């Protein structure tokens, strides 16, 4: 089949499907007589993505395949169609999700250790119901806590192809602030990485920065 014949079929298939479709799934639409290979499909997908330039939708590749979606720029108008506001997620949920995404597989006690607070069962349940996380195993320690990992649905929801596309975890920031005087002599490597060793003695306090808070 010619690329030009393939394009309308693949465009229609992606728009007809309720889920993103992989190159493989798109390939299954054709039989031997159609004579279509995956390379052709990939080229068609590229062409279709290019065709979206300047339009209200874009062809996006996420974890479970390709999907057409509304461009972010026009979305504010589209949301006016729906009376229901999109759900907002609490910081507690997002922090827990971040720990699961970046540190998977991870148990609830491990999450609590890093966050310094108890993780509510509700948060775990909400994320499981949304199918963003799932139990991937159990840690072999007393109590056998469940190990959580993220799912394809999580990646799809956040417009990601794979976990590598998550924003990189930030560098560890030093705890010192400009007011603290540092000893000039080099510190042991470990200390440099881990902590600002504040010299004994009085620390000057600067109240000028206090108005940052408002």
């Amino acid at each position, binding site marked *: 089949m010619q690329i030009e014949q393939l394009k309308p079929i693949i465009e229609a298939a992606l728009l007809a499907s309720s889920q993103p479709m992989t190159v493989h799934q798109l390939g299954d639409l054709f039989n031997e007589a159609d004579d279509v290979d995956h390379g052709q499909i990939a080229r068609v997908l590229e062409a279709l993505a290019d065709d979206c330039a300047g339009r209200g939708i874009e062809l996006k590749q996420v974890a479970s395949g390709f999907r057409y979606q509304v461009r972010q720029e026009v979305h504010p108008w589209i949301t006016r169609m729906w009376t229901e506001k999109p759900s907002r997620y609490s910081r507690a949920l997002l922090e827990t999700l971040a720990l699961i995404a970046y540190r998977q597989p991870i148990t609830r006690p491990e999450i609590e250790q890093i966050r310094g607070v108890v993780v509510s069962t509700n948060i775990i349940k909400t994320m499981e119901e949304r199918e963003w996380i799932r139990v991937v195993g159990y840690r072999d320690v007393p109590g056998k806590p469940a190990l959580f990992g993220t799912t394809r649905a999580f990646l799809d929801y956040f417009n990601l192809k794979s976990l590598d596309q998550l924003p990189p975890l930030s560098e560890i920031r030093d705890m010192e602030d400009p007011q603290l005087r540092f000893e000039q002599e080099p510190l042991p490597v470990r200390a440099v990485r881990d902590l600002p060793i504040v010299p004994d003695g009085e620390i000057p*306090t600067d109240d000028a920065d206090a108005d940052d808070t408002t």
Partner: protein
Amino acid sequence: MSTEPIESQPVAITQDAFASVPQQQEMPLAIVRGQPMLQMPQDLYIPPDALEVILEAFEGPLDLLLYLIRRQNLDILDIPVAEITRQYMTYIELMRDVMRLELAAEYLLMAAILAEIKSRLLLPRPPIEEGLEEDPRAELVRRLQEYERFKRAAEDIEALPRLERDTVSVHAEVGERNVIKMPPPLELHELLLALKEVMHRAELFGHHAIRREALSVRQRMGELLSRLDDNSFHRFESLFDISEGRYGIVVTFLAMLELAKEMLVEIVQEKSLAPIYLKAKASQPEAAADAATDDTQPGEPAFVESSNE
């Protein structure tokens, strides 16, 4: 070495301004018992009235401590530990009413950790291994740094374009969806096993059934019956296909005999040497009586769920 805790003072601002802005860019502000709370705490001392708000604004003691260090330049060494601890103890009492004892306990634990750090710093250091001794704050700082990374990661995730809020997947109408049902695959082997089973059950493996069945004859019987389906007489010779050769002719002849034996056809000849005719003994009944017989009763299913057996 210690300084007095700086009181966080609620600043009066028109309530409307706050009612409409429940969440602002960086840190949530809130109304505490009708009083807007503008300033975030400047150290670990939280006015009891604001405690509930603090518990909601911060994701726990690490978050609060991080805030104080980053925003208020609080030095964790500078905390009046005794004072804080005493105050936190009163929160515990307060928390009993609000049923959030667990949360308050986390803050109290933090105060305890700070107290421990401070006490260790105050003690004289052993003279040996001076350079190698770990700062007592190291563990807490490490935890704060680790927490901060994920606090930022959560903000990063929050900022990612996501379905519902920033985009939606789009679809076109398909019209009628006829689901194609793929017929199940069948291995000849499976079929033969089924036959073995039923033959065993019916005890058909008796000596009379064991004889080599001429299946080509059985096939031909069906073919002949189909040709004779029109309820009229057919010339005997017309039923043979010469191009099949001798073997084919024999098969056809045997099929005729078998059909006659099973009384499925009648073979007639007016007189000797006259043409021989064949006719099916029965033809299609007027009504589709066959289909009607057990349509009402469910009977055995044609398919099984793919997972069982």
